[in-house]
């Protein structure tokens, strides 16, 4: 109990600290007082309000979205390696997003929300394909089946994106920069674009934490405990895809956040989703703010794509979990 309380307090403090660092550290060091102090320095105010703040907020939203989506997918599929990236859902969302940018699609009425919407549609379509294909192979949805299906899907969508890039001339740089995953040069408009989706879908998942706890024992068991399995499953898949789609729409494919964060949270504070999901949200936000900070400061003035940072952390963790799970299976 106390361990969990410490976890909550530490996670919140870490988030606040990383927000502060994210805003003040950079090519120009800015004291935090600038934010509310109304500094005479107009440049500093501009940097804080128009460059750093939207960037930090966007990183937080994207990190929270990917982490909580990963945690939910893992509970639903009883598979610690499931996350938007390894399942291929991010790639599916990318196809939607790239197509929007490539064809310059802008749907009437929803306007700027076209990009996240098509991205989400890409995400959910992919998820349905991956899960139903994997289920056709084996009903128990073993880890290897899911991961291999994710790889197949990712490769296919990767090829589709490459094709679109090859066919385009002018948009090339934008698409490539975006593909590697980045929150650079984002504005308040981007924050506005995804915030509603992240908040709604995030809250939706948090409402389902107890159902997810039951589902961690398998669908049959959950059914016997009184969970409306098909409804909860659909809700979690839709909400998870919304979060992934929204994140991918503004930041491209940032890998492994949904894998690393829930894993760490579960290791430290146990498998109860009433804590795993919200703590993953908070720490996902923190992780991405810090990764972005490192990405833009480590070899100044060059900015690394943030996806590079998460992959550096994520891939070894992925290998470690896979190793442990397989060894357990062998024993």
């Amino acid at each position, binding site marked *: 109990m106390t361990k969990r309380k410490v976890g909550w307090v530490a996670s919140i403090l870490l988030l606040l600290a990383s927000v502060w660092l994210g805003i003040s550290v950079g090519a120009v060091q800015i004291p935090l007082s600038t934010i509310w102090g109304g500094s005479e320095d107009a440049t500093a105010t501009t940097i804080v309000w128009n460059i750093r703040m939207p960037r930090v907020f966007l990183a937080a939203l994207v990190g929270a979205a990917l982490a909580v989506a990963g945690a939910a997918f893992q509970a639903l599929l009883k598979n*610690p390696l499931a996350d938007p990236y390894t399942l291929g859902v991010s790639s599916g969302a990318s196809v939607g997003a790239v197509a929007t940018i490539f064809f310059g699609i802008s749907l009437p009425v929803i306007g700027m929300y076209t990009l996240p919407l098509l991205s989400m549609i890409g995400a959910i379509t992919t998820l349905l394909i991956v899960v139903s294909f994997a289920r056709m192979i084996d009903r128990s949805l073993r880890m290897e089946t899911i991961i291999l299906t994710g790889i197949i899907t990712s490769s296919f969508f990767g090829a589709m994106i490459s094709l679109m890039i090859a066919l385009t001339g002018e948009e090339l740089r934008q698409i490539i920069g975006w593909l590697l995953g980045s929150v650079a040069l984002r504005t308040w408009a981007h924050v506005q674009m995804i915030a509603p989706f992240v908040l709604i879908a995030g809250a939706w998942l948090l409402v389902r934490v107890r159902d997810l706890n*039951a589902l961690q*024992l*398998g669908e049959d068991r959950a059914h016997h405990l*009184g969970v409306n399995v098909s409804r909860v499953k659909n809700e979690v898949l839709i909400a998870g895809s919304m979060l992934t789609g929204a994140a991918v729409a503004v930041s491209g494919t940032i890998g492994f956040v949904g894998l690393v964060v829930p894993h760490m949270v579960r290791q430290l504070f146990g498998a109860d989703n009433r804590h795993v999901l919200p703590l993953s949200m908070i720490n996902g936000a923190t992780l991405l703010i810090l990764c972005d900070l490192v990405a833009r400061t480590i070899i100044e003035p060059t900015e690394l794509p943030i996806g590079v940072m998460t992959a550096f952390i994520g891939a070894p963790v992925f290998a470690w979990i896979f190793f442990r799970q397989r060894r*357990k299976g062998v024993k």
Partner: protein
Amino acid sequence: MLNVHNLTGGYQHPIVKDVSFEVKPGQILGILGPNGSGKSTLLKMVSGLLSSSQGTVEIDGKPIQDYRPKELARKMAVLPQLPPQSFGMTVKEAVSLGRYPHQQGLFSSWKTADEEAVMEAMQITQVVPYALQEITTLSGGEQQRVFVAQALAQQAELLLLDEPTNHLDIAHQKQLLDTLKTHVQMHQTAVVIVFHDINLASLYCDHLLLLEKGRVSAYGEPHQVVDKATLEDVYATRLDVAPHPVEPKPQMTLLPEDSEAAGSIVRAADIQVLDDVVLLHTERPMRVVSSAVLNPGFGWYRTLVNRQVEPTYNVNDVASEVKEFAVSRGWIPTETVMQLTAVATRGAVIREYEAPFGSVVILVTAGVGNALDVSRAHEVQTLPAIGTINTWILVNGHMSDEAFIEAMMTATEAKTKALAEEQVLDCRTQTLATGTPTDSLVVAATQSGEALPYGGPITELGKLIGKGVVDCTRQAIRHYRDAQREE
């Protein structure tokens, strides 16, 4: 409580066909059947996991599909066949999930009743010591108990369990089923259990349902279902059914295919008369029923002993003394039947009688100093414990239980007749004696060769026993009297 009517269903093809049964509160129904007979499928259909193509499943008169999921889970708890994956959950967390159907609304709080139900379930199943451990760190049996606790925490009026004793050792099987039985009696729960083990089902269930290829083959109380002919037919194997030694429930025993292997024949010459014992060792165990001191009752034994003891023999702790004696002589106590007598072993009369079915060997040692008239025995408070007629009847044949009992009756009648012929009197009443206070009888059969269903005087066996026991007993009495006179 639970009513199942003409239930038919399965996957592509119907697996369960036209099954009907009911379970009342406080009752345990066991579902039995060979592999693939549809036991688990039936349970899945009753629990609503699989929909039926025909028929109904009703709980308290309402079809299960009309219940909302949580409402159904408050009525019915299900224990899966294998402990499910638990994904890093602790024992307490998993048991607490049993309270899921009792929690209403999005942010319902954990109430005292919830905590109490969880603690009670964990105490009953004895998983409290592991409360904070991850389930995956526990053994298979412990995991099984965790999910029993989860099902109990649901506090449902109906419990469905799919082979709950799989992977448990016998102590834990018994513990789990005892726990369930107590729980059922306390809370008047209705229980349906799929069983693999016919004997466990017979012991713990009020009713049994035997499935064969998806259809009901037998349904009723254990004695109606655990029946030799029915089980042999459904399982297509050889077995026998006998009553449980303590409980009024039938128990099934498998008959291995080589159980009829030819046995050796017992001859009078095989019996050794030594200074203090009359002894028979056989190659194969004989089926024995006896009133001996060591290993009385029915059993299978290779060593029969009629041992002479001093008239001053201390009879306070006979059981352990005779065991020690057997060990000291190199006999295996669990393979030995031992009688005691004060009569000299040299006075033993051993005769062999040829019969159409084989032969019978009879041995008698008789001491009639304390002979009594059984009709007047109630007049005396204490009777002397020595002075005994010990009889062995060794049969080369395959005797049924009835044959053993009839053989004992016949032998007893013959002994009484011998005493009358020899004019043995009860020295207190001066009436004809019928026996001594501590007579003992051993009937043993090789259980190979011809089947001997009966042992009364109407049969060849009974006739031989009658004649043989009278002859041998009379001769033994004469030996005894000769020995007395010499002294």
